[in-house]
């Protein structure tokens, strides 16, 4: 890791350790987020890391943003850190739109979503928008008159129907009914700024968050099984329990490294193969490691107050957000098949680029 990124990670870890304790995460479930944490993050400029300074962001690259997201995932941070900079901020900056104050969210063209733009009048229905009701704006891509636009829709003008994921993080449905958008809210979308690109970034973000959560799940599982005594010895001495620990560790490492490589190769944009492989690996790792971690913990892991559940409920949610394992595997498989058998190995063996 570069020295700058290492420092960023350390500073962020300190901040989350102070302001995002397991108790804070439980407390945030009532409202779906932590204002105090958000204010501190915003004060440090963390939410807009990877958005160019010239566009009002904090600078840095996609790998910096993903390093932060990995820390955030580890602490189960209940704030739209990924959505604000890496997704919404990126699209706004690319389209030359202003980066508004406050948390932002994004819509990536989920099935059933509709966005209709006529001039500056917006009629849209966007579902499962992360922290949609909490955000000042929701960024979406709309087709109008044969052209593509980036839309920065004010949440205040929408009707919000709250929804939640398994970890009680807001996933809201927002409806704009023929709303006149402000002038600073629409601009033509440059090439490469489209729902598929936003979804790819979303999948990369969730992969990084899953990697962070899995690293913490590994630590908790090793610690608990080393302390918990049954039959007169720590349960980590039993081979059957060791097998769970190894499963958790290897899935965490596999998903973590795949996410890191995908983030490091995003110069400036993430590559499809990297992200598809990383998100599929993250989803599978989330499933397998969560199961093994709960098995290793026994009943304590099933309680709300113990930290494990804050992480596993996020793993069970994040694995499906911005596309699940099967969805990314299928799309990757389609692309690989199109290139034929002899291209398969060269594509697989493309790792981190020098």
């Amino acid at each position: 890791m570069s020295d700058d990124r290492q420092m960023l990670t350390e500073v962020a870890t300190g901040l989350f350790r102070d302001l995002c304790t397991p108790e804070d995460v439980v407390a945030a479930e009532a409202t779906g987020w932590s204002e105090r944490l958000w204010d501190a993050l915003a004060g440090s400029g963390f939410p807009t890391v990877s958005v160019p300074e010239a566009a009002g962001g904090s600078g840095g690259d996609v790998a910096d943003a993903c390093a932060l997201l990995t820390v955030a995932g580890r602490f189960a941070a209940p704030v739209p850190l990924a959505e604000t900079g890496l997704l919404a901020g990126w699209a706004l900056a690319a389209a030359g739109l202003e980066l508004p104050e406050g948390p932002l969210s994004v819509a990536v063209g989920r099935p059933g979503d509709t966005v209709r733009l006529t001039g500056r009048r917006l009629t849209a229905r966007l579902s499962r928008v992360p922290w949609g009701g909490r955000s000042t704006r929701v960024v979406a891509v709309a087709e109008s008159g044969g052209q593509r636009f980036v839309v920065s829709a004010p949440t205040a003008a929408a009707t919000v129907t709250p929804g939640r994921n398994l970890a009680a993080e807001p996933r809201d449905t927002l409806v704009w009914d023929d709303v006149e958008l402000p002038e600073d809210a629409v601009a033509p979308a440059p090439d490469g700024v489209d729902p598929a690109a936003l979804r790819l970034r979303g999948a990369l973000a969730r992969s990084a968050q899953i990697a962070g959560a899995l690293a913490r799940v590994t630590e908790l599982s090793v610690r608990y099984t080393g302390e918990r005594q049954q039959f007169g010895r720590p349960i980590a001495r039993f081979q059957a329990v060791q097998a769970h620990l190894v499963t958790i560790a290897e899935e965490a490492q596999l998903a973590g490294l795949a996410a890191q490589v995908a983030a490091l190769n995003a110069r400036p944009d993430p590559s499809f193969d990297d992200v598809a492989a990383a998100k599929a690996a993250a989803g599978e790792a989330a499933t397998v490691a969560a199961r093994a971690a709960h098995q290793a913990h026994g009943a304590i892991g099933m309680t709300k107050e113990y930290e494990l559940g804050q992480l596993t409920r996020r793993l069970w949610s994040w694995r499906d957000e911005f596309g699940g394992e099967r969805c990314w595997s299928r799309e990757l498989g389609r692309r690989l098949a199109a290139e034929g058998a002899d291209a398969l190995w060269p594509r697989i063996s493309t790792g981190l680029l020098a």
Partner: protein
Amino acid sequence: MQFAPTALSPAEEALRAEVREFLAAELPPDHRPALGFAGRHDPEFSRTLAERGWVGMAIPQEYGGHGRSAVDRFVVAEELLAAGAPIGAHFVADRQTAPALLHFGTEEQRRRFLPGIAAGEVYFSLGMSEPDSGSDLASVRTRATRVEGGWTVTGTKVWTSEAHRNHFFAVLCRTSPMEEGRKHAGLSQLVVDLSAPGVRISPIPYLDGSHHFNEVALEEVFVPDDMVLGELGSGWQQVTSELAYERSGPDRWLSTFPVLREWLRERPGVTDDEAAVLGRLAGRARAIRHLSLSVARALDAGAAPAVEAALVKEVGTRFEQDLVEALREAAGTELDQGSGSLFCSLLAEAVLTSPSYTLRGGTTEVLRSVAAKGLAA
């Protein structure tokens, strides 16, 4: 535990391109890919590969090798395995015996064996397992007795791969009696010539009927003093470190890759279900490759990533097996080694041989114990 992301340098990429070009020219278009490092024993191929400098890469030049890095070896090995090249003759000597000779061998032993290994001409088997000794290597009963000028060795080794074709094997045996509470002491490694008087090699048919395994019975085989490998009494430490070297390379996750490629080659197009299988396997291979390459880079940096290597082997060998089952389900065919479809025939071979992947070089269960101890540390 740390797996750092690492990229191939331009020189490493150039090496890869060279190997790809060589394989495209060397392997005939209708070649049946070998599955994994033990897939096919072909001395001619090993010698040709050696002429290119791709055997004995880790052996220093003064011993006839090439003094290359672990990552260079990784690059060559993954290209060979992905292509299904027949590397079975030299691979074990190159991967396992050469590093042991370098670390523990005498100068004379290095000069005697390493040039032949690097030339792709001297092949080794492993002499660890016995009828009553598998994962618990300290329980070996093969015994060496002091005689003038050396030792006489008596005992039986089993599951000795390719002993009928190879030249030597490093035998783990007791050179002093087992003492209560110190079962790992008193073991030594002796290099035994497989053509020496008193060595009797008999086939143990492999479950597919092929001749791969052997029983090697040693009856008062004379081994001169200068064929003791490393310190007398340090055999256990030596073989366990030897196991660490062999753990995390591409040979632990690429054995069945050619089955996937041939499956794709025989598809006219892919359905959604087939695309999902292909994407999952390819994505996972990619992710495991990142881990495996990371360990090679760490080795070059002088680290001793034993736990990481155990994890890679555990996850990699399970992947090799998962790939086979995923393709079997997707193909919906009946298995027949004699099938006219190369894919079906390879799949059948893979089903029959893949159980060995999670056994050889340390069973999955033993690896999990190694890794779990490392995690707790």
